[in-house]
């Protein structure tokens, strides 16, 4: 069994009516970093993950989760 990192960034962005560029600017990363995290192409560092969760004012587990793939 393989664990992949899933996320709900797109959902939180939609709720907050934020573009990728605006979220990227707010947490101090590039837009490409956000877009690649969203689609699961890039696993972010703990610091970036915590910054995203803090920005949306939710626990880390609400934004990121382990997606079990066989």
């Amino acid at each position, binding site marked *: 069994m393989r664990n992949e990192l899933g996320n709900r960034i797109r959902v939180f962005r939609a709720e907050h009516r934020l*573009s*990728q*560029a*605006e979220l*990227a*600017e707010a947490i*101090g*990363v*590039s*837009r*490409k*970093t956000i*877009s*690649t*995290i*969203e*689609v699961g*192409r*890039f696993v972010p*560092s703990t*610091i*970036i993950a915590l910054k995203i969760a803090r920005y949306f004012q939710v626990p880390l587990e609400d934004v990121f989760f382990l997606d079990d793939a066989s």
Partner: protein
Amino acid sequence: MKAQTTPSPAELADRKLQLIAWAMFAVALVFCLSVAEFFASEPIAAIIDIAGKALGIVILGLMALLYFWKFRPMSRDQRSHYLAEDGFVHIAFQKAMAKSWMLSFLVLVILQALDNLILERLPAMPLEIVIQGILAFMLLLFSVAFLFLTRAESGNEE
């Protein structure tokens, strides 16, 4: 959506790394030309020599122009901020460096192991040409790996 007039430090950091990768690709081409010059006949070698020098000057000029155009507005605070960034492009840069080093090492080890099959069949070359060939190979591997890792994928950007 808010209109962005100036790029953020993180965007500038990404652009800088992309510029470095393209510069490495261009330098690899210059090294390739130097190696080709060694194997070419005299009239063609003269043309390659001029082309290599011209390419070198164009690369230097272009890189200097892009650097001052895109990065000069950054303050000291911005520079220190982006250095701490561990974003996608930064990690891709590190991965490309590791991959190119590993692959170059493997190729050199294999060449060394198969010296009777490959190396002895090559014409004798000055050390300078051998070094330029290895540098060209390593730089090409790095830049191609980086460009592949950071390639754009449709449908994930808005």
